């Protein structure tokens, strides 16, 4: 996969994740867009690779955040007696 399509895929994945973001999709989308635009002039393939790696790390973090939020909410609702 070319680096360009890797970046596009990463952006799409993050946008998809943003739909469930606690502060709202719009909040997430603006920040996501800014984060990508900040690095739009990066041309060094090594650097781009690093940035994609960072993006993938963020994907993992957001998934973990959602899971934890759901788990904690359910635990509070159904298991609050101990």
């Amino acid at each position, binding site marked *: 996969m070319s680096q360009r399509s890797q970046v596009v895929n990463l952006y799409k*994945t993050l946008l998809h994740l943003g739909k469930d973001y606690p502060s709202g999709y719009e909040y997430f989308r603006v920040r996501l867009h800014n984060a990508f635009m900040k690095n739009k002039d990066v041309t060094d393939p090594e650097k781009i690779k690093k940035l994609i790696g960072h993006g993938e790390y963020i994907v993992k973090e957001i998934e973990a955040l959602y899971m934890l939020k759901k788990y904690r*909410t359910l*635990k509070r609702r159904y298991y609050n007696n101990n």
Partner: protein
Amino acid sequence: MARVLVGVKRVIDYAVKIRVKPDKKGVVTDGVKHSMNPFDEIAVEEAVRMKEKKLVSEIIAVSCGPVQSQEVIRTALAMGVDKGIHVEVSGPEYETLQPIHVSKILAKIAQNEKVDLVIVGKQAIDDDSNQTAQMTAAVLDWPQATFASKIEKGDKELTVTREVDGGLETIKCKIPAVISADLRLNEPRYATLPNIMKAKKKPITKVTPKDLGVDISPRIEILSVEDPPVRQAGVILPDVDALVTKLKEGGHVP
């Protein structure tokens, strides 16, 4: 190898604030975000993990409800389920659909599809019935392993750790069996975008309760749905004497 049936229910998303309809006959569902019942996600995840460990050959997800229920079947397919069955129940019939009906539907499908395991979430976060797994086991006359927090699958039997009041209970039961998933069983995976796309190619069969020969005539009538009582506002008192008077008025001290 074993075949697994998982039950998935479409419920109002856990993060949404529930509002009661003005006529007190139900809750507002129009334009409200729905998603898969979190306990059913845990059930799906467990089935998918069994498949990844090559203990299971095929996973079927079934959901009873209106057309939109197909969305949660899609989510299950994206998580790794092989095929879906949508039992269409809509409108007033869906409002009075009870675990007794769902369990008969699940039992019928379990027999038709010749499955060896039925895994469902222990309860749905909308009606909190916590009955479907138990009733399904009863209808099928299979053993039940409810509130599972750990499942080890052998060839002919299961060892299941159950969450009971104040501790854990480990039981052994024969296969076929019905399992209900508790919160600590596993951490469900997130359905990724590429997997959601791939899931669109997986088959979903549509059936009606009538096709299955299950009577879903209502057993109950909803009389009224009420909000839980709101906490009353507190007051700030100027001194101890006023506090004592207030407490006496309220009958909290003699």
